[in-house]
């Protein structure tokens, strides 16, 4: 079991109730879609996975470790086992493609001699060979997201978290990005992806957790039965 939520509730300081008594389990190697309207609690749930938010009540275990009781100094180690893909890519504009990816390795203290070969490897994997020295501003949206994904997987995470990764992309580009994520999942990485894109989810035949008003509305093996 990679992720366990037990009766997790979250009330923000301003009184907003984001999650209400959520329990769920995610196995190693799964691919999970997180669906639901805006304000349903998707973002809060996602942020709890990498401990940007902690629950007001309940327990969360990741790889059998409680992240609620975790010390602040232990959080970086937790996050090094995860990769995060953002809707707005969050690339550093003044760094090239290769530098953006290498940056993630530098940040976690990888050895300099390991950084170059691993960076080339993931650039090849996401199909950006030849664009190593381009800056984000010179790339299309789809290419930028590939850089984002390459950066997320460069440290070989156990868990890949994607928050609306195709939200800013057209349908064809979104499908390409999905293929890339499935590919990563096939190689063993657990993937949790929050999305609005019903079309993408339908064709995927993967587990779908639907949230509404902070609660789990449904947890299905695929969306087609709806």
């Amino acid at each position, binding site marked *: 079991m990679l992720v366990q939520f037990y009766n997790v509730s979250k009330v923000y300081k301003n009184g907003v109730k984001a999650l209400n008594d959520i329990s769920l389990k995610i196995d190693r190697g799964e691919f999970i879609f997180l669906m639901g309207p805006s304000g349903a609690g998707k973002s809060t749930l996602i942020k709890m996975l990498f401990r940007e938010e902690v629950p007001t009540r309940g327990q969360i275990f990741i790889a059998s470790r409680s992240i609620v009781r975790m010390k602040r100094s232990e959080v970086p180690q937790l996050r090094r086992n995860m990769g995060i893909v953002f809707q707005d890519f969050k690339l550093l504009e003044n760094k090239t493609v290769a530098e953006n990816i290498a940056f993630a390795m530098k940040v976690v203290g990888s050895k*300099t001699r390991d950084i170059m070969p691993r960076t080339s490897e993931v650039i090849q994997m996401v199909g950006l060979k030849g664009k190593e020295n381009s800056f984000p501003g010179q790339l299309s949206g789809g290419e930028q997201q590939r850089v984002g994904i390459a950066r997320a997987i460069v440290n070989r995470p156990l868990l890949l978290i994607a928050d609306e990764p195709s939200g800013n992309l057209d349908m064809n580009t979104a499908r390409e990005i999905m293929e890339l994520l499935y590919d990563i999942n096939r190689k063993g990485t657990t993937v949790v992806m929050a999305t609005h894109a019903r079309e993408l989810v339908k064709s995927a035949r993967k587990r779908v957790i639907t949230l509404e008003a902070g609660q789990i509305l449904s947890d299905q093996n695929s969306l087609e039965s709806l």
Partner: protein
Amino acid sequence: MMNLKNIGYFFREAFISLTRNRLLSIATVSTMVICILLLGTAVLMTINTGSFINRLESDIQIIVFLDNSMTSTQIVDMKRNIEKQEGVKSVVFVSREQALQNLQKKFTDKNYDLSKTIGKNPLPDSYEVKAKDPKNVGALAAQIKQMPGVYKVNYGQGLVERLFQVTKWVRIISIGFIVVLALGAVFLIATTIRLAIFARRKEIYLMKLIGATDWFIRWPFFIEGIMLGSGGALISIVLLGLGYNSLIHNMQTALFFIPLVYNHSLLVNVYLSLLATGALLGALGTYISLNRFLDV
């Protein structure tokens, strides 16, 4: 805390950030120059006031007028007795003849002969007594007054006590002034540095989510803050040094009654402390501003 293999990276990042945010760097350095300049001026003023006060205080002495009936042996014995008192620093005998001469010196007009005008010398023999701690002159004077053969003691009664009241408050106020200035400087620097950090908040957030430790993120900012701080301090020290030197050269004659401190090693220490203060303010300002952004 600092992984040695990252030092190169930390310095490179600090330099890149310095040149990239040129306008903010200039703003921070300017703020620092003004703060250190004010702080340095306050310190120099405090040092000068302190030395002036010390001089005033060390001038305080007790004049012990002796009975005219005393024999010369009794006078010598008395000196020993005074020296035995606790807290006495020095005892100097002033004979009546010498006292008259001293008085004569105050009438610079040579044509006016005191001894001729008065006829005979009306002044008594006296001892000039200095206390180790000028604050004890009152008590010491009271003790000496009890001794046989003492005609009168004089130490500026009332005036001395008031002087100590004034100097005590001058010291408290100047130290308070420096503390307030330093706090204001920390606040100003922290605000300016916060702007620089705010411009890079997305990068900091990203680093946190990738799994960077707080110190990995802090070091480049720290180095940047320390460089900005000591750079600003350096500029203000040059300005302050030039200003103070010209003050010494030009004002020494015009304002001779205010003796300016010109102790080379003391001034060097002041300037070095200001440099250290600048670096510290830069580091402290960065620390205060940065923590909020690290809380992810």
